[in-house]
């Protein structure tokens, strides 16, 4: 068996792959955050709670309506996305004219309320959600035992991330979106309903979080605190990638997953901290983040 830095090679490859899987979740979540921040200038602290709601929605669809995993992969983001639209219309839209801090406080409060409600009804031990039958089992890759479901997560995340990127950067819809954030009155003068565009963007960002939640349900236990473990890391990812940069969020998400994975081999105790260490270093050298444009 060959060794790299005193660690058996196969073990290291295994960890790289696992890092990529976690990175997929970071990428999907930070993507939603980056879209919302880039378009709405709202720091959406409720993102973790909405991610959790996505997982719960898929659990409820199965439990109460008998709807399986694949339909809920589409249904749950739609339901939670609609919930996001309602949130934006009724509460969040009132804050656009105020300082960022108010949006942050509001969404943070919303997150606490949502989590508290779920905790009250479902406890914190978590609820079981089975991996769908065709994705059961694992493949022996030679250097590690790769559960099929995790492979599927990486694939699904890549597809979703790059289609979102393509929609925003390469289509005329995306161009309208970007123009609306740049200069809303002017775009409105062209006959575009800007408030509606903004509402739908928020809904879209929320749907991304819910989609990640459905993907996470079979891996982690579906519990009200599941978003907490991700949200801090994901904010660090957005900051490192550059606030509001779509590509930055995707690339940084995957990269930090890998860095975290490697830390788990060499010094597991630091695995929760390493992301923030990277953040400090990036902010000291590149204050606008890796992919951020200078203001």
């Amino acid at each position, binding site marked *: 068996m060959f060794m790299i830095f005193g660690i058996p090679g196969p*073990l290291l490859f295994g960890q790289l792959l696992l890092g990529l899987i976690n990175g997929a979740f970071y990428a999907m979540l930070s993507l939603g955050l980056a879209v919302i921040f880039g378009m709405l200038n709202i720091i959406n602290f409720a993102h973790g709670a909405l991610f959790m709601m996505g997982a719960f929605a898929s659990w409820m669809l199965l439990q109460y309506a008998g709807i399986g995993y694949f339909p809920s992969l589409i249904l749950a983001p739609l339901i939670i996305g609609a919930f996001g639209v309602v949130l934006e219309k009724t509460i969040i839209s009132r804050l656009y004219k105020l300082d960022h801090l108010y949006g942050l406080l509001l969404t943070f409060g919303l997150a606490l309320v949502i989590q508290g409600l779920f905790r009250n009804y479902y406890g914190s031990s978590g609820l079981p959600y089975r991996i769908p039958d065709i994705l059961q089992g694992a493949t022996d890759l030679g250097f590690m035992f790769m559960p099929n479901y995790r492979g599927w997560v990486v694939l699904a995340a890549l597809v979703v991330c790059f289609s979102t990127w393509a929609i925003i950067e390469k289509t005329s819809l995306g161009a309208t979106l970007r123009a609306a954030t740049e200069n809303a009155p002017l775009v409105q003068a062209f006959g575009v309903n800007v408030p509606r565009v903004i509402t739908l963007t928020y809904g879209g960002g929320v749907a991304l979080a819910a989609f990640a939640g459905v993907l996470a349900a079979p891996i982690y236990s579906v519990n009200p605190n599941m978003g907490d473990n991700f949200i801090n890391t994901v904010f660090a990812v957005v900051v490192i990638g550059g606030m509001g940069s779509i590509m930055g969020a995707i690339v940084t998400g995957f990269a930090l997953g890998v860095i975290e994975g490697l830390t788990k081999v060499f010094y597991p105790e630091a695995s929760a901290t390493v992301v923030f260490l990277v953040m400090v270093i990036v902010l000291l050298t590149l204050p606008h983040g890796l992919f951020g444009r200078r203001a």
Partner: protein
Amino acid sequence: MTISRRTLLGAATAAAAIPLGRPRAQGAPTVKIGVLNDMSGPYLNTGGPTSVTCCRQALEDFGVAGKGLNVEVINADHQNKPDLAVSIARQWYDRDGVDMILDVPTSSVALAVQGVSREKNKIFLASGPATTGLTGEQCSPNFVHWTYDTYMLAKSTGGAMVKAGGDSWYFLTADYAFGKQLQADTTTFVQKSGGKVLGASAYPFPGTSDFSSFLVQAQSSRAKVLGLANAGADTVNSIKQAREFGVNQTMKLAALLMFVTDVHALGLDVAQGLNLTESFYWDLNDQTRAFTNRVKSKTPNNWPNMIHAGCYSATLHYLKTIADMGAAEGKKDGAATVARMKKMPVEDDCFGKMTIREDGRNLTTAYLFEVKKPSESKGPWDYFKLVATTPGNEAYRPLAEGHCPFIKAA
């Protein structure tokens, strides 16, 4: 005589305050119990509101009103943070007149509350925490460790695994007082029985939900047993993910601390065949079933595990002691009341007969269970088969090995 406005206001305030007092038994001072545990995090279901329910059940079963006692129960969420727990404990003891703090899961938090309770000469009855440090180097005359500890878990579950041929171990450990102590205690047993420990991964607590990386490391160590030195939602997640990565095909899983509530969260499909140790199970005998019947309507989604039963049992014995000493005497000196608790016979529906040792260790019987297959389960919460029983005087660390300082001094 002229009455100043200030006197008038003062008199009015005083008069307004008088009717606020609740009706209470004449003359007897109020005994106040504070349940301090995790009401929002990973240990919510293993302790949480069900601990409070069981504590109140003890008041009801003892019949406090009929015995002329005024007892009040309050509770708070310590969020698994030692600093927060210490400030709540100080406020309770100093300002709110709390006499006894109950439960306190999370070993690091319990060790912090231990210090405050001793300093204020109040009483700390622990059901939730596991570390043997509480009756070892950091023992206190104001304290009883009621339900279980890391030594008892290591001996019962760990010992059984080694006997069944699991002689090489890899640990997955929550990186704080409890996880480290549980790993250390289990390591001692494994090595004493001629086994080896091949490695360990200590992961950050709380905040880790993905264990895949550590599981793959464990697998490549080629150890026969994976010892899970963690608890609550972490245990649930690590068992789930171990199955996903096929770790259960090459290694045996030893859930060193697992409760019936965790099995409920995992589902029998995933949990079947696991060995675990508790000192209480609702379906052990007529008494435990009777107790469970009394409380389950008050906590229908979360039946009592050993921590909850411990809260009941500790409260009941505390109340018996207070009734015996008189409330005023029982409130005066925490250490003296605990000394009296140790002398009085301890018995209840949940644990049967027990003895509280002088270092504060309550000697409960340790039951080794195996989780049933889905086909063997007959009804709700029917999860365990009894495999082995270790009597209280053998289950716990011998007094001399604990090096409890206040006993040496005596």
